[in-house]
């Protein structure tokens, strides 16, 4: 029942070695590194989230990460993903695409009912897709993921057919996300307010009550039968009750964990992770989020970054490695990829991102930025080499904001003036919409490499009526477009991977982005919490296999 080691994660491996060392030294009391025995049923686990409290517990509405975190305990999707990145059965037992890729038949489990007694069948799937596609639901994430789904029809009670407008190689990945989870059609018919307060799913827990700004109480679903194919056990969950709390302050969250008021915390910051490593009673779970890596996008749509030499110069002038290792105190691994390291299709190319101020200076000279102004910055025709960098204080944690400051300091040595502007979320969106930025960092979580199409296809430069667009680097390259469009239609796994590899190489070699590290997702837990893992879809924890060794 030990949490599985993740050898590919250097950090996790290091933690393991340290823990092993402590064990050998004989100074660790009975902790989770020793076999904990057979799982025991019962007990209440208190989870403390540092994420914002959702305004709606139904992740169809809106669709953000805080909703995914909690809803994974009571809602389930048609499919899931395993540690190797393969799609595995969940509420759907099997699926068959047609030869032209336009029709998908999903065979559903016949023995599943929602916790309000409604049967889970083809009609229920139909109702859920309709709910997601209905504009009045105000779904964002789920709605976009279903962009190519034209109709959904019940072939039989256990077979549901999706008809697409064009082949979608990301369909299964999209359906695996918690924002597209299945809810009771009877419950969906209630008012949105009611459904937001108590959504009904097929999951191992049931939403019992929600006291805003305090806690959500989840109770065990005793009739539970439908764990995903990679779960560690069958039947109902071990925990009897889960108290889901919101503790926004990082230090209080960790204090509550230390004092035993709570059993698991998320959003653990580098300083607390380092502290926790010295504690015998606290364990760490590091589970990077899928989709895009955290990265700085360089706006290639306007000066100065419309010149590839200036983009490369900026990247070469930024000493990211030192900034990351000192400010994240060894808790984050530097990334050299556009994609998260959990994506099997990710291409990493460290050589493109070497810190090399001399090369940066040469590139700037060649690009005509060879004057020096009174403040020591480079200039061209009297115009200073300035980089406007709006920073969302909601999305960038303090350590990340410090990394940006380090980049600002090292880029200054080469002659870049980086203007960091910390902003609240609305102002930040507004700055992006009005194109008032040269560099920006925006997280994007999605299962699978199709996130590349959203972030780097030229279609995503066209602002929505909102003014928002996802292609913040404003990459506008017909060759990249063609690769991404073809990949999104190619269902053959190898061919698809090779198309995404070509696209990534071209994006990385174009110096459109400066990768930093995976989207950090660290959990800390009391040593007696056993069997906690994250779902390999969007790396939200699942408490289904979790039990308390006390």
């Amino acid at each position, binding site marked *: 029942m030990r949490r599985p080691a993740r050898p590919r994660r250097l950090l996790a491996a290091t933690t393991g070695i340290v823990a092993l060392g402590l064990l050998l030294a004989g100074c660790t009391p009975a902790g989770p590194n020793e076999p904990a025995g057979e799982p025991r049923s019962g007990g209440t686990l208190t989870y403390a989230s540092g994420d914002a409290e959702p305004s*709606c517990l139904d992740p169809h509405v809106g669709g953000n990460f805080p909703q995914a975190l909690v809803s994974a305990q009571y809602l389930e999707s048609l499919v899931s993903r395993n540690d190797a990145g393969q799609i595995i059965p969940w509420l759907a037992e099997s699926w068959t695409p047609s030869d032209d890729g336009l029709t998908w038949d999903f065979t559903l489990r016949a023995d599943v009912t929602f916790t309000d007694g409604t049967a889970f069948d083809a009609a229920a799937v139909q109702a859920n897709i309709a709910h997601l596609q209905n*504009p009045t639901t105000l779904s964002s994430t789920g709605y976009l993921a279903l962009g190519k789904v034209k109709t959904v029809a019940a072939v039989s009670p256990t077979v549901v057919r999706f008809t697409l407008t064009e082949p979608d190689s990301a369909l299964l990945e999209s359906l695996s996300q918690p924002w597209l989870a299945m809810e009771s059609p009877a419950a969906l018919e209630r008012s949105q307010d009611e459904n937001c307060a108590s959504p009904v799913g097929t999951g191992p827990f049931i939403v019992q009550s929600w006291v*805003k700004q305090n806690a959500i109480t989840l109770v065990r679903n005793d009739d539970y039968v439908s764990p995903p194919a990679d779960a560690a056990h069958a039947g109902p969950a071990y925990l009897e009750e889960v108290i889901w709390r919101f503790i926004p302050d990082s230090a209080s969250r960790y204090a509550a964990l230390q004092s035993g008021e709570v059993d698991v915390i998320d959003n653990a910051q580098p300083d607390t992770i380092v502290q926790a490593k010295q504690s015998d009673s606290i364990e760490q779970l590091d589970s990077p989020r899928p989709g895009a890596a955290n990265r700085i996008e360089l706006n290639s749509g306007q000066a100065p970054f419309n010149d590839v030499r200036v983009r490369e110069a900026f990247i070469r002038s930024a000493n990211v490695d030192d900034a990351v290792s000192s400010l994240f105190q060894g808790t984050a691994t530097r990334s050299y990829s556009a994609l998260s390291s959990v994506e099997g299709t990710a291409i990493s190319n460290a050589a493109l991102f070497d810190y090399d101020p001399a090369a940066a200076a040469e590139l700037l000279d060649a690009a005509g930025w060879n004057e020096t102004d009174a403040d020591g910055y480079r200039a061209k025709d009297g115009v200073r080499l300035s980089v406007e960098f709006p920073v969302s204080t909601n999305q960038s944690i303090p350590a990340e904001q410090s990394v940006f400051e380090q980049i600002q300091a090292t880029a200054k040595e080469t002659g870049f003036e980086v203007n960091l502007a910390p902003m609240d979320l609305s102002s930040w969106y507004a700055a992006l919409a009005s194109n008032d930025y040269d560099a920006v960092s925006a*997280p994007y979580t999605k299962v699978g490499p199709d996130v590349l199409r959203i972030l780097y296809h030229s279609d995503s430069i066209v602002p929505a009526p909102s003014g928002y667009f996802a292609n913040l680097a404003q990459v506008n390259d017909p060759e990249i477009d063609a690769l991404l469009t073809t990949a999104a239609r190619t269902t053959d796994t190898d061919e698809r991977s090779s198309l995404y590899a070509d696209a990534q190489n071209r994006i990385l070699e174009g110096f459109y982005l400066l990768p930093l590290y995976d989207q950090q997702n660290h959990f800390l837990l009391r040593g007696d919490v056993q069997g906690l893992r994250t779902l390999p879809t969007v790396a939200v924890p699942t408490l289904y296999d979790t039990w308390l060794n006390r």
Partner: protein
Amino acid sequence: MAARLGGAIFVLWAVASITFFAVRLIPGDPAQAVLGGPGSQASPEALAAVRTEYGFDKPVLVQYLAQLGRLATGDLGRSYALNQDVGPLVLDQLGGTVLLAVLALALAWLLALALAAWSTRGGTVAARVGSGLEIVAAALPHFWLATSLIVVFSIWLGVLPPISTVGAAGLVLPVLTLAIPLAGFLGQILRESLLAALESPFVLSARARGESERGVLWTHALRHASLPAISLSGWAFGSLISGAVVVETIFARPGLGRTLLTAVTLRDVPVVIGVVMIVAVAYILMTLLTDAATRLVDPRLRSE
């Protein structure tokens, strides 16, 4: 009385207007905020629907007048972010904050009285220690005090929970955090006016009548000396509510302070205005209460 009522209405109008423009005139797109914040990617259709639903597509002045119209009828509107009517939402959270503020005010008074009484009677050393403690206490920032109390009482000693709990134990640290700096302020004022009162002729005559030192202090001098501190309590109550923003966030307590913080971050104008209006009403009520308390303590004001 009519003048007072008019004044109160004027204050409420001013509070509503200033808050509305302060929040709305900052550049930013409330529709994006409505649709979910970090990690959500709003579709154009969803954004358009939200714009129409909340009237963001109308000129700011029209939105302002509509807001005032609703407020005048007692309708605080609907939260952009929480999908809830603001009235019930704010009233739901009011209890926790008022409890916190009232307990903190009471404890602050107790601490200030004890310190002032001890330090004015204990000679020069006590006076110095007392005034030193008051200055230090008054200067303590809430976030620092809160974190220190958590480290000492939750982590080192392990006797008090660092977050809100079902029982009363979770209230101790937040109340202490709010009460200690306030006790410093109140103590400074109490002690100064107590010293002045102890020098007054009426104390001399009380002593001459053979009143005990204790009687002199508690029935004569303190009654006189507490007047400035009582009028300060109206202000103190307001400052406690603003302190609640920090304290409720650190101690993960439900309440108005945390509601306000979240609402400001999300540009949730109706909730911000709702909370600020409720706090303004509480302020006005508290001022009326301190007026009444002053009259009660000071008979000279009653005859006027």
